[in-house]
């Protein structure tokens, strides 16, 4: 294990600002980032990562490497929600609706984790492909759909449903079109994919150069500001974890580790580059807290958000960016050198 890598990451400004945010809550400071700003920064990061990924893809072109990465991404986002669902229902005796929601959470991905990982790679000057951004966009939705399918498969039909399911659509069955919209056209998938396509189209041209000061140079600074806010929010959610209990807290650290091992194996098998492999591992290890709640709210209405949200936001996310990032990279280095 490369201890210097861990310390190095620990002492990098984005991570330190994340800690600063958490600290602000612990000492009861009134530090507060206005919500419209936090939202803007997340949109900015998605736009930046999407556009730059697309522009790079325009340079490199569609290759075999790209296709296998997409395949691997697809594969993992199908496997993870299924195996975690059974761990949750069988091993942890969890009710179906919560298990399905947590499975969707851990099968889907966190764009902010990905973004933090790209900043980490850039600092270490390890190159990575623009198509990994496409993999990120690709991995957000399938796990959600699988989670909903599992929920519907394993839930006994509600006897009261028939009385409810009258003419009024508000009472009716799950609306697949609403689910698709929430899972595929939610703001974060939409903006990443859209920016990627715009980057693909206009990359290489003079437009790319003119956007650099905004979309590229500010990236690291905005990330610091954004992680300051994430620290505030994560620390506020920490107390919800008491409800989740020790076994779910352990789950929130162990499953990312297992997913990271699986992803490492897959990445080695298909011959990803070191940078791409780290991003792929981060994606698989990460858990969603933006796309999943939006889609699960309507599709698995009885799932308890005060379980899956703090698990991903207050445990898995900090774990991945603080410990996971250098840990996964030093593990990968063992096999890639």
């Amino acid at each position, binding site marked *: 294990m490369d201890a210097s890598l861990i310390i190095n990451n620990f002492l990098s400004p984005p991570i330190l600002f994340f800690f600063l945010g958490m600290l602000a809550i612990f000492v009861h400071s009134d530090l507060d980032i206005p*919500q419209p700003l*936090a939202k803007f920064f*997340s949109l900015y990061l998605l736009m930046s990562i999407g556009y730059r990924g697309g522009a790079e893809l325009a340079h490199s072109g569609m290759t075999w490497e790209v296709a296998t990465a997409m395949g691997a991404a697809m594969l993992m986002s199908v496997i993870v929600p299924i195996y975690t669902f059974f761990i949750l229902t069988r091993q942890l005796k969890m009710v179906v609706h919560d298990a399905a929601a947590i499975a969707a959470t851990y099968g889907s991905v966190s764009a902010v984790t990905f973004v933090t990982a790209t900043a980490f790679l850039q600092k270490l000057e390890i190159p990575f492909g623009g198509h990994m951004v496409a993999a990120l966009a690709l991995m957000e939705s399938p796990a959600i759909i699988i989670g909903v399918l599992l929920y519907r498969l394993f839930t006994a039909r509600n006897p009261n449903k028939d009385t*409810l399911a009258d003419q009024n659509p508000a009472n009716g069955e799950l609306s697949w079109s609403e689910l698709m919209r929430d899972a595929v056209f939610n703001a974060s998938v939409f903006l990443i994919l859209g920016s990627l396509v715009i980057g693909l189209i206009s990359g290489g041209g003079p437009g790319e150069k003119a956007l650099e000061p905004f979309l590229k140079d500010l990236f690291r600074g905005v990330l610091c500001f954004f992680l300051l806010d994430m620290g505030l929010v994560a620390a506020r959610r920490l107390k919800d974890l008491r409800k989740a209990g020790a076994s779910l807290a352990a789950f929130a650290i162990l499953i990312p580790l297992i997913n990271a091992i699986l992803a490492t194996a897959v990445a080695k098998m298909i011959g990803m580059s070191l940078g791409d492999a780290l991003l792929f591992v981060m994606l698989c290890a990460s858990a969603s807290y*933006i796309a999943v*709640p*939006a889609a699960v709210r309507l599709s698995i209405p009885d799932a308890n958000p005060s379980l899956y949200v703090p698990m991903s936001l207050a445990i898995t996310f900090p774990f991945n960016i603080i410990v996971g990032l250098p840990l996964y990279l030093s593990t990968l280095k063992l096999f890639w050198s």
Partner: protein
Amino acid sequence: MQPVKRIEIILDFQDLAKIVKILNSLGISGYTVIRDVTGSGDRGLRPGDELTDVFKNSYIMTACPEEKMQEIVEAIRPLLKRFGGICLVSDAQWVIH
């Protein structure tokens, strides 16, 4: 001044469009919305501090004639049953102008 019923609905930010649709379908074109509202209810705290808009509320108020009130309430009730939220009805005087 004319007596009206003041209907207040507080529900998920993302269900706002559904309520507006129902009001429109009942021919109600007068309402006021406060988009960003936080709170707490049966489904726990809704702090409104996350990136996703899932955990925050919206507030809608409509003043309507008494006879319309029952109709609106009936149309909204199943939505509240399914998605959560509350609906309050109170009396008010509309200043005619």
